[in-house]
C-alpha cells in the first residue's frame, strides 16, 4: 500500500490518504479497476454501493469477478476480491440502490470524496445532487469503447453534472416507426413496441398499427375517410387499444398474428398512396409463402452472427410467441413481461420481428448480434479503457487530498493523440452555470405545457421525476394558501393524480414550490401555459420563457430503459487548436498547458448513444 510507505507521497498527502473516507458508487467496469487502485494506493476506509449482479458478459473486463461469481452481488464480490490486496483495508459493501433513502444526506456527509463509477444518467444526477447538498467533492467518470472521461465536481467551484443540459435520448417520429421505416433501427424500435403491445405494459405512445394521422397525409382530403376506415375494422385490422386483447383471443396464434402484422397492415399502409409516391412501397408477406422456405440453415456460422432468412425469422417468431405466451401466463392474471435483451425469447422475438419488417420495407436485414446492440443500447466496453480511466480518477482524487482541487482537470481519453500529442487531454474545469436549476443558489426553471391537458400524475412522473430527476417530490402551489398537490407521503395526494393542473387553478405564470427531501433539493417552477407544443411533445423545460423556442421535434423513444450500457458515459473529446463553437453556442477555453502559445479551445458536444440513461457527453 503506497501510503503505508514513506517517500512515495508528500507527508501531508500520505496522512490524508490514510484518514480519507471514500464512497464508490458502482462496482462494474470502472469500479473494479478503481477499487484495486484505491486499495493498493493505501485508502483503507471505503464504502461501495452497487445494485447489480454479475453477468457473464462482464467477465472480459470486470476482473474482480469470475465465472463462479455470476449472479452474485457485484459490491460483495468486488469487496471480497479487493480485500485480498490488503486484508486490513476496511471495505463496506452495499448491495443496494443509491436511490435508497438509507443513503441520505447524513450518509453522504461522512465522506471526504465521492467517486462515481456509474453507467446511467439518473444515478449520476442523483449522486450529483447528494454531493452538492452534502458539499462533498465528487469525481465523475465514464467510458465508451476506446473513449473515456473524468471530471471533478465541487459545489460553488465547478460546473455540476447538471449545469449543462444533456441531450435527450434519440427518438424517431411515430409515423416513421409505424408507417415509413427506412433504417434497421426503425424496425428494431417497432419490434420492441410490438413486444410491449403483446406482452408488456400497454403504452399508447408505442402503437404499432398504421398511423392515419401521419402529417404526410394531412394534406389529403381523404384523411378523414382514412381515419374512419381505420376504426371500422374493415381490413381485418384491430383498433388501437386491442392489439393485446386480439392476440389473446387468437391464443397468440403465430399464423394469424403474422398475417395481420406483415400482410394485412402492410396492405393497409399501401392504401395510403401518398406515402409511397417517393418511396419504395412495402411488400406484404404471407406466412405460408416466405422467402427462404425449404432452404437448409447454414449452421456453420454462429446463430447470433448469421443473418436469418425470412422463413427462419418466421419460425423463430412462432417459437417465441409460444414461449412468451407461457412466460406471460406464468405471471398470473395482471402480469406483464418486461423486455430484456438478455432474455433469450424476448431478444429472439425482437430480432426476428425487426428483420421480417425490414424485409417488408426493403431494409437490409441484420444479425441477432447487431440487433441486440441496437435494441439493448449496448455500449462496447473494454478492460484497458476502464483501467486508464480508473487510474485518472485516483490521480484527480490525489490532487483533491493534497489540497489542490483548483488543479483538478476534466480529462478526456482519446483513441489517437490530438494535434498537441496528447492522448489524455486535460481541460480546465468550468465555473458553475449561474442559471443551473440544480446547483445555483435559488434553483428555478420554467415548464411549458398545456395545463388543461396535463394531469398531476403526468406532471410528477414525466416532468419532475422523468426530466428534472427528482426522486420523491413534494409540490405546493405558491398561491398564498400553500395548496399541496403532490406529497411524497404515500396516500396523501393520490386523489389528485388524475386531475388536470388547471383543476387546481394552475395556469400561465403559476409558481410551484417543489421540494425533494431526500436530495435536499428545492426548485421553484414557473408554469407557462401553451395550447399546443411541437408534435407529440407534452412539455418542455427551459431556464426562463425567453429560452423557449418551439421547433420541430420528434417522439417515440428509440429504446426502452436499456440500463446496460455497461460502463458509462459522459464523454469523448477532441480538442483542436482552432476555435470551435459548441452546439450550445458557447465557446470554451482550455488552459494552455504547453509552453507554446497554445490557444486551446475545447469543443463540447453531446453524443447520444441512444440509451435512456446512457448518454455520451463528448467534449
Amino acid at each position, binding site marked *: *500500500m*503506497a501510503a503505508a*510507505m514513506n*517517500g*512515495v507521497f*508528500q507527508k501531508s498527502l500520505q496522512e490524508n490518504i490514510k484518514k480519507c473516507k471514500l464512497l464508490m458508487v458502482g462496482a462494474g467496469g470502472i469500479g473494479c*479497476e478503481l477499487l*484495486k*487502485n484505491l486499495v*493498493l*494506493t*493505501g485508502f483503507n476506509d471505503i464504502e461501495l454501493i452497487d445494485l447489480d449482479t454479475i453477468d*457473464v*458478459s462482464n*467477465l*472480459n*473486463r470486470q*476482473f474482480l469477478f*469470475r*465465472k463462479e461469481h455470476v449472479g452474485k452481488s457485484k459490491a460483495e464480490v468486488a469487496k471480497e476480491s479487493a480485500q*485480498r*490486496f490488503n*486484508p486490513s483495508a476496511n471495505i463496506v459493501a452495499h448491495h443496494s440502490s443509491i436511490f435508497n433513502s438509507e443513503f441520505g444526506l447524513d450518509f453522504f456527509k461522512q465522506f471526504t470524496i465521492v467517486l462515481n463509477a456509474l453507467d446511467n444518467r439518473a444515478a449520476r444526477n442523483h449522486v450529483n445532487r447528494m454531493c452538492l447538498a452534502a458539499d462533498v467533492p465528487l469525481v465523475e467518470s465514464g467510458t465508451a469503447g*476506446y473513449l473515456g472521461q473524468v471530471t471533478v465536481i465541487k459545489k460553488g467551484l465547478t460546473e455540476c453534472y447538471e449545469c449543462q443540459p444533456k441531450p435527450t435520448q434519440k427518438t424517431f417520429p411515430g409515423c416513421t416507426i409505424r408507417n415509413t421505416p*427506412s*433504417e434497421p433501427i426503425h424496425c428494431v424500435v417497432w419490434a420492441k413496441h410490438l413486444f410491449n403491445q403483446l406482452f408488456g405494459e400497454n403504452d399508447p405512445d408505442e402503437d404499432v398499427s398504421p398511423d392515419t394521422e401521419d402529417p404526410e397525409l394531412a394534406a389529403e382530403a381523404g384523411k378523414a375517410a382514412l381515419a374512419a376506415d381505420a376504426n371500422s375494422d374493415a381490413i381485418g385490422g384491430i383498433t388501437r387499444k386491442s392489439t393485446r386483447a386480439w392476440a389473446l383471443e387468437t391464443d397468440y396464434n403465430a399464423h394469424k398474428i403474422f398475417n395481420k402484422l406483415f400482410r394485412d397492415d402492410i396492405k393497409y399502409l399501401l392504401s395510403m398512396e401518398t406515402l409511397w409516391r*417517393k418511396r419504395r412501397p412495402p411488400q406484404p408477406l404471407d406466412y405460408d409463402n416466405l422467402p427462404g422456405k425449404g432452404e437448409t440453415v447454414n449452421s*456453420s*456460422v*454462429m446463430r*447470433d*452472427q448469421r443473418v436469418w432468412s425470412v422463413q427462419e425469422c418466421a419460425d423463430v417468431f412462432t417459437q417465441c410467441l409460444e414461449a412468451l405466451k407461457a412466460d406471460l401466463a406464468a405471471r398470473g392474471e395482471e402480469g406483464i413481461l418486461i423486455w430484456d435483451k438478455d432474455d433469450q425469447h424476448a431478444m429472439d422475438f425482437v430480432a426476428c420481428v425487426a428483420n421480417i419488417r425490414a424485409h417488408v420495407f426493403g431494409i437490409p436485414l441484420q444479425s441477432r*448480434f447487431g440487433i441486440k446492440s441496437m435494441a439493448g443500447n449496448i455500449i*462496447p*466496453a*473494454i*478492460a*484497458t*479503457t476502464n*483501467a*486508464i480511466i*480508473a*487510474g*485518472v*480518477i*485516483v*490521480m484527480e482524487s*490525489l490532487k483533491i487530498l493534497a489540497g489542490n482541487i483548483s488543479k483538478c*482537470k476534466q*480529462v478526456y481519453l482519446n483513441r*489517437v*493523440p490530438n494535434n498537441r*500529442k*496528447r*492522448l*489524455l487531454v*486535460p481541460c480546465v474545469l468550468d465555473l458553475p452555470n449561474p442559471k443551473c436549476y440544480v446547483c445555483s443558489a435559488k434553483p428555478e426553471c420554467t415548464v411549458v405545457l398545456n395545463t388543461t391537458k396535463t394531469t398531476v400524475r403526468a406532471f410528477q412522473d414525466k416532468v419532475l421525476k422523468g426530466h428534472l430527476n427528482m426522486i420523491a417530490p413534494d409540490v405546493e402551489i405558491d398561491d398564498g394558501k400553500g395548496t399541496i398537490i403532490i406529497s411524497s407521503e404515500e396516500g396523501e395526494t393520490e386523489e389528485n393524480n388524475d386531475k388536470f393542473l388547471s383543476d387546481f387553478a394552475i395556469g400561465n405564470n403559476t409558481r410551484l414550490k417543489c421540494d425533494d427531501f431526500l436530495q435536499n433539493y428545492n426548485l421553484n417552477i414557473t408554469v407557462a401555459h401553451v395550447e399546443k407544443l411541437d408534435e407529440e411533445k407534452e412539455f418542455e423545460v427551459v431556464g426562463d420563457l425567453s429560452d423557449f423556442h418551439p421547433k*420541430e421535434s420528434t417522439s417515440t423513444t428509440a429504446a426502452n430503459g436499456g440500463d446496460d450500457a455497461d460502463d458509462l458515459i459522459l464523454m469523448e473529446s477532441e480538442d483542436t487548436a482552432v476555435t470551435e463553437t459548441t452546439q450550445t453556442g458557447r465557446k470554451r477555453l482550455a488552459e494552455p*498547458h504547453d509552453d*507554446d502559445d497554445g490557444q486551446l479551445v475545447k469543443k463540447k458536444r453531446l453524443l447520444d448513444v441512444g440509451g435512456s440513461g446512457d448518454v455520451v457527453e463528448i467534449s
Partner: protein
Amino acid sequence: MEDITEDEAALYDRQIRLWGLDAQRRLRAATVLIIGLKGLGAEVAKNIILSGVKAVTLMDHNPVDEEDRMSQFFVSGAAIGQNRAEASAPQAQLLNPMVTVTTDTGNPDEKDENYFTQFDVICATCCPPSLQTKLDKLCFQHNIKFFSGDVFGFYGFTFTDLGTHDYLHEEVKKAPAKGKEENKSKEDEEKSKASEEVVITKEQMVFGRLEDALTFDWSADTPEMKRKIRQTPTSFFITKVYEEFLQQHGRRPSTFTLEADTKELQNLRIQVLNKLGVPAKVVPEDFYLYGFGELSPVCAIVGGVLGQEIITAVSQKGAPLNNFFLYNGVNDEAMVDTIVP
C-alpha cells in the same frame, strides 16, 4: 483460423462489439511474453489475459518484495520472497481460463536468441535500457512485435516497435450531399445521415528502433532543436534518469534507501542531461520527490495504454501509437511522441 465458439462470443461480447470478430480471432492466436511482473507488468498481463490472447508467459527472475504491495495485485503480502512470476501465475490464470498462462523464472539477459522466437509479442518491463535495446533489435530481426515500458512513482513510459506494421483503418465518411442545401427536406437529411458509411483502408506504419531514440543527440544549438526539446514531453527525460539508475545499479530506487537514492538521482539528473545535451531545466530539480515506488493508478494508466497497444498491434485494427507514450502524473502529461522516426 478457427471460428470463435459460443462461449467465447458470450465472454468477449462487449469487446467484439468494439473491434469485431476478425480482431478477436487474431487475438486468440497470439502468444505473448511479459518480462517483469511488478505493478506495470501485472496490469499488462491482466489486460491482455482478459482480452483473450492464446497464451501468456510471465517471466521474472526476482522475488516479490515489500514495495510490490503498492501495485502488484496478483500477489499478496504472504508471497514476499517467492519468485514474482510464479507467485503471480495462479491469480493471473483465474482471470481467464481460456488463456494458457505459463511462467519462466529465468533471467531474460541470459536467455539465448532462439528462446524469444517462440513469441508473437514481447513486452519488457523493469528492464534496463541495455536489455530493452537488445531485445528490440532481436525482435526486429525476427519480426516479433516489441514493447517496453516502466513506471517510477508518478512517472511512466511505454515504447513500441512493430517494424513495418500493416493495419486496417476505419473512418466514418459522409456521402457527399445531393441537391441544394435550401431545398433539403427533413427526409433528405435523414437520408444523408443514413448514407454515412464506414470506409476501411489498408495502412502501413514504419517504426524506428529504441536505440536510435535513446542515443539521439539533442545538443545542436539551433532553433529547431530548442523547439524539439521544448515540445518533447518532460517524462521522456525524467524516465531516462530512472532508467540510468536501473542500468548503473541493477535495481530501482527504493523507499528503503530513500536518502542515498535521492542523492544518486540528483547526480544522475545532471549526468544524464549533460550526456544527452539538453539543458538541466527540462527535468525539474524536485523531480525525485515523485519517483519512488510504483503508484497503482499510474500503473493502471500506463499499463492500460500498453495493454491496448498490444491488442491494437495483434488485431491489426487501428493505428498504433508511434512510438513513445509518456506519462507524468505531476503535471497531467499523457502524450505520444516519436523521438526518432
